[in-house]
């Protein structure tokens, strides 16, 4: 190492001001920089490497491999054969695939908008200085953190056709309840209700954070000007909350399209595939029927749909979520 560099590196290790300091000559500066840089580069990679190796092996390679797998047929034991786009062709004419896709859409549309709507009102109700607010917030949030499998088992018990709580309560008001999870008509609504109950806490918390970011002066000024509570809600809260709403919608859509646990536990996709979601279809193809290539193809389609929906939502977002910010 150049003695000058060594000297500077020793006296001023890592001091970025050395770079701009007038006392350091240009020659010294470049010398010091390269020495520091090398040290910093080595350190940078050393700190990154544990994560990077895992990231490459368990994220990047599988992502690339998924696409590669769609071009093959493989049952895990026999030969792996290259089939070109055959899997995609099969997908198009696979009635079961389309049914699972429809199920996933039904579930997403049933679980997300209603949940977000309820969560919004809950957040409004909870956004006040009042004793017990944290306690209530915890109550509405608890289902979200508890393990889905346990929750799903509890709800399967609640939906029990003869002994379940739901049909008992329905019976009290004279309604003969359906066989919920065993009915092709009612299994999906039953799971949607349960998922809404479980998931609302998440949206509620984000709405609360969004509400707390709205400047209090705005509300006060509007009140002084004689705006009613409804007018303030309509013209201040809702527009200012639009980016938050948008964010919740995107993340909730993405999560709903990947739903699996509650379906597997409560109905295992039945009856008659009425509640088989796309992720469950990937699971069945891959680990029950051992069609690795085809399962990967469904996975790629799921990925593409999630990607497309997100992109679409971003496009719409420009017009309504951020519109008012651009106006200002």
């Amino acid at each position, binding site marked *: 190492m150049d003695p000058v560099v060594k000297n500077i590196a020793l006296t001023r290790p*890592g001091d970025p*001001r050395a770079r701009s300091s007038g006392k350091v000559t240009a020659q010294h500066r470049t010398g010091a920089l390269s020495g520091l*840089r090398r040290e*910093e*580069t080595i350190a*940078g990679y050393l*700190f*990154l490497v*544990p*994560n990077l*190796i895992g*990231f490459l092996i*368990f*994220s*990047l*390679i599988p*992502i690339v491999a*998924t696409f590669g*797998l769609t071009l093959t047929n493989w049952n895990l034991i026999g030969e792996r054969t290259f089939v070109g786009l055959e899997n995609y062709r099969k997908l198009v004419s696979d009635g079961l695939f389309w049914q699972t896709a429809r199920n996933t859409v039904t579930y997403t549309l049933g679980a997300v908008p209603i949940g977000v709507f309820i969560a919004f009102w*809950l957040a409004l*109700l909870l*956004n*006040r*200085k*009042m004793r*017990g607010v944290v306690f209530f*917030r915890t109550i509405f949030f608890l289902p*979200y*953190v508890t*393990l*889905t*499998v*346990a*929750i799903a*088992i*509890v709800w*399967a*018990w609640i939906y029990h056709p*003869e*002994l379940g*709580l739901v049909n008992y309560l329905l019976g009290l008001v004279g309604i003969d309840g359906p066989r919920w999870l065993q009915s092709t008509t009612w299994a999906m609504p039953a799971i949607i209700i349960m998922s809404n*109950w479980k998931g609302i806490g*998440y949206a509620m918390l*984000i709405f609360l*954070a969004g509400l707390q970011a709205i400047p209090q002066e705005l509300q006060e000024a509007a009140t002084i000007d004689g705006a009613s*509570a*409804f007018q*303030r809600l309509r013209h201040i*809260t809702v527009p200012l909350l639009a980016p938050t709403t948008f964010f919740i919608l995107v993340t909730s859509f*993405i999560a709903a399209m*990947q739903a*699996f646990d509650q379906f*597997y*536990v409560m109905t295992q996709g039945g009856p008659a595939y009425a509640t088989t979601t796309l992720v469950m279809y*990937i*699971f069945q193809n*891959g680990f029950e029927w051992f069609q690795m290539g085809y399962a*990967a193809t469904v*996975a790629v389609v799921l990925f593409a749909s*999630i990607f497309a929906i997100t992109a679409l939502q971003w496009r719409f977002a420009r017009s309504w979520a951020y519109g008012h910010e651009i106006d200002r």
Partner: protein
Amino acid sequence: MMSQRNSGLGNTHRRWLGNGMAWVVLTLLGVFWMVPFLWMVSTSFKGIDEVYAFPPRFFPEVLRWSNYVEAWQAIPFSRFFFNSLFVAGATTIAVVLTSSMAGYSFARLRYPGRDLLFLAYLGTIMIPFPVLIIPLFILMRQLGLVDTLAGLILPAAFTAWGTFLMRQFMLSIPREIEEAARMDGASFWRIYLQIIMPLSRPVVATLGIFTFLGSWNDFLWPLIMISSVENKTLPLGLTMFQAQVPIKTPWQLVMAAATFSVIPVLIVFVLGQKYYVRGIATTGLKG
């Protein structure tokens, strides 16, 4: 419905009324919201005849604590508990360690290729896990890790979003402290360990709780990977309970099992609620 804080307008009266109404509505809703949990706990204490009684009784005649013992012994729950704790604990430690180191590297050190690598990390954050299960399983099979606990921990130990979370937080730490330490000749490792990490405690807590609960609740990946009973985690064990039983399902035992699988989650959540809530509120992490 809007915020009732009309203070300064002499409206304390209305505000008091508003809060009172909110309290009533929230209490009713809250009780309604808790019904599934209450029903779970209530069933877990019943005798089998009470479970199958119609109309259902809300409160069991006697609290049968023995249901919990029976449920615990019906299948190797202590084993499942240990497996879940081990997997969640090891995953959490690994994630916090690798993410904070990578986050420090991305946030604080300058080197060629850094931004490109970070972009690659960002690009994969959006990719849903179910999309990767097929190639991941094939990979684990080649590594001989199928049906092992290591096979559950490894794929979860290196996360792009954890790295992202750490990096964002560390970017907000003022550089002055660090620069002073560098001038005193501290190594990058010491700066990371003695300056950055202590200052990052809130985000470490957030990431840790998220990872722990996520791992504890994880179902899809263990379902794919684990086949032998002694390697099952708690969620898998619970479904086994459900599938194993004869025609007359002993729901009281199933509910007892569900109850004690929920308890650790409650403890972790109540203890770390502050960090968990903050994590969701600031970054919108989906657990």
